[in-house]
């Protein structure tokens, strides 16, 4: 058991190393740091300012091997971008933003709460709504409601998130004036007003695929033998759903839930931009537009790290919960 956990953790660590190498290839070897400097300092600055900027941000070092040191010296390999990239990322020293020099870790701390305030209600609301609705639909299986619901789900899946946001904001914010069109506030008494609209839109956009997924699971369970037995024993359709089917469908639901949790932290790229929520998704988009490579690679790294962590957690809980399961 413990051997498995250790092995799983070790494998997770190796994956992190792999992710870091990929990030290094993407962000250091291909892009020219002088362009990052130019964007950061502005078109009107002089070349000396760019050079100074590169030095301040450590981009002036060589990638893999530092020829300034003798071949025997270890510094030949440690005073390089590759080594410092690994060192900084593994020690969670994300440094400063390429765009405006603010410490990235401070930005992450600032952005995490607004992001979670948006994504968590969307996730929770979406989960509750879609499970409730899909149970209902499974209850009505083989009726017109079921068929209509499936088509509606597929239709809802075929609408781009961008369109949900554009039309939702236009209709509810601008035409009906139920909630502020956009904005955010740190004041807990007011903040729900801002979050209501993006959360509603987020839940709506997630319903299509989720309901379809859960419905499939419930129907699969509904066709199993134990359900038939229970029904033969005179168990009512409603209690059958709640007591037997839902309970047995918990495992696949849990898998899906655990793997979506890391993405809650990454925030929502589109919603945060349209609704002016200062979260991590907005930060990412800003990093893209501002050519801010250091922030972007940190975001990718954090996302990957959370995902790997969640996976390890699922695998380990599985083995604890069910000794027959052996993964990896």
């Amino acid at each position, binding site marked *: 058991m413990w051997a498995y956990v250790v092995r799983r953790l070790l494998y997770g660590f190796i994956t992190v190393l792999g992710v870091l190498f990929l990030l290094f290839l993407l962000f250091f070897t291909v892009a*020219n740091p*002088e*362009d*990052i400097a130019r964007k*950061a300092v*502005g*078109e*009107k*600055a*002089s*070349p*000396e*300012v*760019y050079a*100074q*900027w590169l030095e*301040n941000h450590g981009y002036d070092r060589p990638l893999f091997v530092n020829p300034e040191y003798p071949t025997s010296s270890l510094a030949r390999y440690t005073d390089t971008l590759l080594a410092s990239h690994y060192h900084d990322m593994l020690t969670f020293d994300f440094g400063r933003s390429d*765009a*405006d*020099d*603010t*410490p990235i870790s401070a*930005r992450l701390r*600032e*952005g995490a709460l*607004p992001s979670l305030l948006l994504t968590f209600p969307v996730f929770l609301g979406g989960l509750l709504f879609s499970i409730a609705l899909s149970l209902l639909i499974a*209850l*009505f299986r083989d*009726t*017109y*409601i079921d068929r209509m619901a499936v088509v509606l789900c597929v239709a809802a899946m075929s609408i781009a998130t961008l369109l949900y946001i*554009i039309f939702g*904001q*236009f209709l509810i*914010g601008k*035409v*009906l*004036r*139920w*909630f*502020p*069109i*956009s904005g*955010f*506030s740190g*004041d807990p008494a*007011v903040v729900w*007003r*801002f979050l*209501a609209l993006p959360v509603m839109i987020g839940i709506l956009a997630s319903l299509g695929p989720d309901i379809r997924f859960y419905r499939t699971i419930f129907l699969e369970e509904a066709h199993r033998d134990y359900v038939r037995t229970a029904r033969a024993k005179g168990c009512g*359709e409603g209690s059958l759903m709640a007591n037997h089917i839902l309970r047995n469908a918990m495992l696949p639901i849990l898998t899906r839930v655990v793997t979506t949790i890391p993405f809650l932290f990454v925030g929502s790229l589109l919603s945060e*931009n*349209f*609704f*002016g929520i*200062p979260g991590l998704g*907005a930060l990412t*988009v*800003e990093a893209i537009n501002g*050519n801010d490579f250091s922030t972007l690679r940190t975001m990718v790294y954090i996302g990957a790290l959370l995902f790997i962590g969640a996976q390890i957690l699922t695998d380990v809980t599985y083995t604890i919960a069910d000794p027959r399961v052996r993964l990896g």
Partner: protein
Amino acid sequence: MLQVVSACSNDPYPSDDQTRKVLYRAFPEAPKTLDPAVAYTTSAHAITGNIYEGLLEYDYVARPYQLVPALATGVPEAVSAPDGTIRYHFELRPGVRYADDACFELSESESSKSESSHSEIPDSPGSTPTTRSVTTRDLEFSFQRLADPAVASPIAQNFAKIRGFRQFSANLEQRRERDASFAARPPHEQYALVGGIEGVHLLNELELDLVLDAPYPQLLYWLAMPFTAPVPWEAVAYYDGEEGRPHFRDHPVGTGPFVLTRYNKQALMVLEQNPRWREWPQPAPGHIAPLGPRAGSRLPFIERVEYRREKEAIPAFGKFLQGYYDGSAIIEESFDRVIQEDQLSSDMAERGMRLEKSVEPGIYYLGFNMDDPVVGAPAGERGRKLRQAMSLVIDIDELSRLFLNGRGVPANSPVPPGLFGYDPEYRNPYREVDVERAKQLLIEAGYPGGIDAETGRPLKLGFDTPDTTSTAQLRSQFHIDAWRSIGIDVELRATTYNQFQEKMRNGAFQLFRWGWIADYPDPENFLFLLESSNGRTRSGGPNTANFSNAEYDALFAEMKDRPNDERRGELIREMQSILERERPWIELYHPEDYSLVSPWLENVKPFGMSYPMLKYYDIDPDERARLRAEWNQPIVWPAYALAGLSVLIVVPGIFTFFRERV
């Protein structure tokens, strides 16, 4: 759900602020830095300009732009000495004090202790932050910071004519490299040890002379911007970004009318009145009257300014229409909503909105890469004729109608209206649409009907842009369509920023679109964009067209430091005629600054350049509250309709279910 809907309002602000004079603005992106020596963008100056104050400023209302004293007692005249140096004498107003800040108290307590710089610094500032008076030492410190290579001020080279400015930078850098303990000291101590800038000459606490090696009349314009505003050394030393303290660039301390009280780059910036600002009597200028009962009171009129982040144009403009932003000057995409055929739309006029416009000293243009073998100088007469032909088909009136709603003055030369050397009568013969002449020129250039004899196909050119926004793409398509009408096949290459820079560096581009907004209202700030030593590919300078013309360079050298006299006008006209013939640019338009102003906001006058005008604004909060309430009645019936509809769908289902299953 229905309860929630009927109970909620779309007011994004706390209700207590309804009756206060709070100005609400939207910002799309926070400035990267608020360090006055470094901040160089319009969005940064909108903040720093209100927090810091320089020796000079511009008159808010007078046009053409006119310099007036701010912290100085007067605008000085240049006095030339027999040795060729130029001297400006400044006298500082007495009793100017910094805004209250914790850094002053700490430095006081620190200096009362021993001199050891590593004595413990208290973690939390005391309860009564203090201030101190501004002296010429603070001005000296600001100049020294500009020269400091570590500060990396983007405009440092503009001050290089100050005697000893470059020397100071060099000394500072040398000392730092040689001596690590020196480099660890706070900046003001370093500057003092190096010995200061020779040309910044302090006479006493309130008087200083600036000594220049050569004439540079534009210097005064730079002094009207926040770059040289007095900066307290205490703040620079204390706010170093360590141990949880913010960095100085995020925590400005100045003498201006407002102080920055909240600074969250992602969401909110708040400016509040600075009670220390101009404690001497300061009546508003004659043409600026405060509203209602506060008449005769002191500037600034508004209590607080809240800048809220809006990344998308639509929500920002939507909230403006709902009355939750007080003015909308920045939101470009939404102008067509409001202005039709150069007039305020009837809907807007009904709401009491006002339109304020002024020409910005700036220019947008299409440029050719003059190093290119096909469109540039190497192609000689052929290239020149080609550029002339391409210039002749760009219809600026149509462009302005489609994309700007008339929000731009057609440009005939780089010099925009309002500046010396702008001639409203001047018509560039290559900036009128004449398709027939363009076709004729193409024949003369050896591309009859646009056909390149070598390939037998239309001449193929590339148009590079790093702007991948959809509006920019449409504009580019507009130009491309125009060139296609005379048979030139221009391909749009919208790339990422990095790809674009790569091409610029390698000179691997033919056509591009660019804009320039003046730093100061002088034609030199535009004409230098075509001077050969500023070539983009060769030196990384702002001459993106890589234009290189010896005659032009000579005229520019004579023109740049001249006072605005007859000869200067003549020189500018000659330079214009070179540009007219050579066509390194296809001048498009000088942008116009259109501000939409809510009915409750007063004393708004668009300025064009970055200008700290917040101190003049005034708000009528009662009127605002009334109109907001009128404009924001929620429409609730769809919620009931939705509920009804879901009942209609679900109820028959339940019946079916019970009929079939139970």
